[in-house]
């Protein structure tokens, strides 16, 4: 098992390929510039990443045109995307893919519909997202505000119509297809058939939207929300690696800065107060790497524990790293023109996303039999 906590050679190659592309195409200055443009997502970059390198169809089985890879490879990609706070809908698309795979395996729905979508995703033709607030944790009993008419549905479930509203959805703005939990089942809705309103988002590099469904045509994908829970669990596991990457980048940037910034005739990185804090952060990040790797290398009940641990730990580490990055850059770190704030906003948002650390600890309490009272 412990070897699984390392990176395999193919994983390192994938990581390097993504890193190279991002160095070219997602330098922080362009990421920052995009936050104030009309297109908060970099669809061009996503096309190259998704279709070119094939990260969109990473989880899709080979027979459907995908890479047939596991969460481990997805995590490696997320780590690089976290380092660049790249504005691409990788996580949302991954969540949708995981949902489609779970729906397909559950046998509780329309396998052909899932297969078809997975094929399109792998081919880079379509991007999907799950229409659920980004803050929902995997263990939440979800009760949304979208309902299906007519209910019960007619014989042909393809004829369902969805009405209602979902707020603060991640990565849905650039999506072509939405997977919508509604009235206990999951439906496929074409994004064009819903009204998406961008939200002024704390994380400027992953802009949320509110979605309004007004009698939107939907095809039933699966009965029951079990695939949703599985998808959110996968997303939370991969998000931990994104947080790891973000923390690494913040530490790296900060260490570089304090080596070159001089005050009182000395590099500020020579002062023990800062050195000890950076060393402590490094310890936290080394641990984050182990827990993040573990969360994508295990399965079943053990994965549920591992993901709760990873989310509780990595969320906190990413926030700490970003906060130290701002503080140790001093005045410049507080400005708009320095990338530190992009990381701070992403880190804080990501800690809330898919359940707060406290929420994950509460879940853990049930899993490892440590009840509150």
């Amino acid at each position: 098992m412990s070897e699984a906590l390392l990176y395999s050679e193919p994983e390192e190659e994938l990581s390097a390929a993504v890193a190279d592309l991002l160095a070219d195409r997602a330098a922080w200055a362009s990421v920052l510039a995009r936050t104030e443009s009309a297109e908060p997502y970099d669809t061009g970059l996503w096309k190259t990443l998704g279709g070119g390198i094939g990260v969109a169809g990473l989880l899709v089985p080979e027979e459907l045109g995908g890479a047939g890879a596991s969460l481990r490879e997805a995590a490696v990609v997320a780590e690089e995307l976290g380092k660049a706070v790249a504005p691409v809908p990788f996580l949302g698309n991954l969540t949708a893919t995981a949902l489609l795979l779970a729906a397909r395996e559950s046998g509780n729905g329309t396998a052909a519909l899932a297969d078809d979508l997975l094929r399109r995703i792998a081919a880079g033709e379509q991007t999907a997202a799950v229409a659920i607030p980004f803050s929902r944790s995997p263990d939440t009993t979800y009760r949304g505000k979208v309902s299906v008419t007519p209910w019960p549905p007619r014989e042909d479930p393809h004829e369902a119509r969805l009405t209602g509203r979902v707020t603060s959805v991640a990565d849905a703005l650039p999506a072509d297809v939405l997977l919508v939990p509604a009235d206990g089942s999951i439906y496929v809705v074409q994004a064009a058939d819903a009204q998406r309103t961008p939200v002024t988002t704390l994380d400027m590099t992953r802009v949320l939207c509110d979605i309004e469904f007004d009698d939107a045509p939907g095809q039933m994908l699966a009965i029951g929300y079990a695939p949703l829970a599985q998808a959110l669990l996968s997303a939370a596991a991969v998000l931990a690696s994104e947080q790891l990457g973000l923390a690494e980048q913040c530490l790296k940037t900060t260490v570089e800065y304090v080596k070159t910034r001089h005050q009182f005739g000395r590099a500020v990185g020579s002062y023990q107060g800062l050195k000890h804090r950076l060393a402590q952060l490094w310890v936290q990040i080394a641990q984050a790497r182990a827990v993040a790797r573990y969360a994508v290398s295990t399965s079943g009940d053990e994965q549920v524990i591992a993901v709760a641990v990873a989310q509780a730990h990595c969320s906190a580490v990413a926030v700490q790293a970003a906060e130290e990055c701002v503080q140790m850059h001093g005045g410049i770190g507080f400005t708009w023109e320095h990338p530190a704030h992009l990381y701070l906003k992403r880190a804080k948002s990501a800690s809330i996303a898919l359940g707060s650390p406290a929420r994950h600890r509460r879940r853990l309490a049930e899993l490892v039999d440590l009840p509150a009272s």
Partner: protein
Amino acid sequence: MPPLITQHDLENRIQDLLAAHDPGTTSRLDFLHARFDAGLAWLHYPPGLGGLGLPRGLQPVAEKAFAAAGAPDNEPQRIGIGLGMAAPTILGFGNDEQKQRWLRPLWCGEQVWCQLFSEPGAGSDLAALATRAVRDGEDWIVNGQKVWTSMAHEARWAILVARTDPDVPKHQGLTYFVLDMTAPGVEVRPLRQLTGEAEFNEVFLTDVRVPDGQRLGAVGEGWKVAQTTLMNERVAIGGGAAPRESGMIGVLASAWREQPEVRDPALHDRLLTLWVAAEAARLTAMRLSAQLAAGQPGPEGSAAKYAFASLNQQISGLELELLGEQGLRYDDWTMRRPETVSFVGRSPGYRYLRAKGNSIEGGTSEILLNIIAERVLGLPGEIRVDKDVAWKDLPR
């Protein structure tokens, strides 16, 4: 020496002024001019410069009386840098002509002042600053870049520290000037911060001419003069007796009380820990003001600022975590120039972001801890490698 004026005399003078210049009919500026000329502006300043040489402690008597009479004030919020930093320095180091020229329009709010000290390369280590002033006949030619300048876009005058001799150790080569912000070569640009707003400015100085008559103190004595400015900056902190649950903790406590759905029992103890910390900080500020009132000034000022920053950051961080989905959203990224900073009335995300500045602006938390460690606890200073080296030879 004239006999000391009593509180009773003072009250009489105020009533005389109010009788002669009815606030209801006198224009705002006329009234302020009259108040200054009567020595009833800053009472502890010397006669002829807006004061009567009285103890500082009597100032509230005047403020209360004028407020009660509905007299206009000089908008101390808007001209804080002038009042708090420029004026004491002019008073301490200016010649008679300089005092006469600048203090009256400063106090009356006719001329706003700003401070050109910090530079991109000189923050905590202010004495390392690189803006150059070179003598040219009766003028100095100034070149350089200043940063974190509040009010620069509205200011008429600036207090400026510049390097006049790069060949001596850094503290020795500085000179202090007053700079006309309307002079050619002064360019003010807003400095946008991570909240989206721009409270501050960058100021670029390109071949700006400053007459030698606008120098404060001797050439090469700029560091000593700047100390007066900076000491007066710190006096303001402490603040006295705020009610319980003032500030950020009140916002968080209200959210907890009024939105039961955000109550996460797992974070209850953390909420209370911060509540206790905020209450402790409040009582400490109360104790500090009692000490000051009793003439026992303590070093708690630095501690108060340090604790305030740390608390604000923790409280606003917890608020976002509690709010969940609501915490993922922001109110407005538009570039704006706010008049004042307030943590309430904006979104929780704004509070979280803005609080990050509390441990940087006006002395970083690291510098404050150094001050406490060295000046209060008497621990040895850092080994200094920059004391005896010519400024131009320092690593940068």
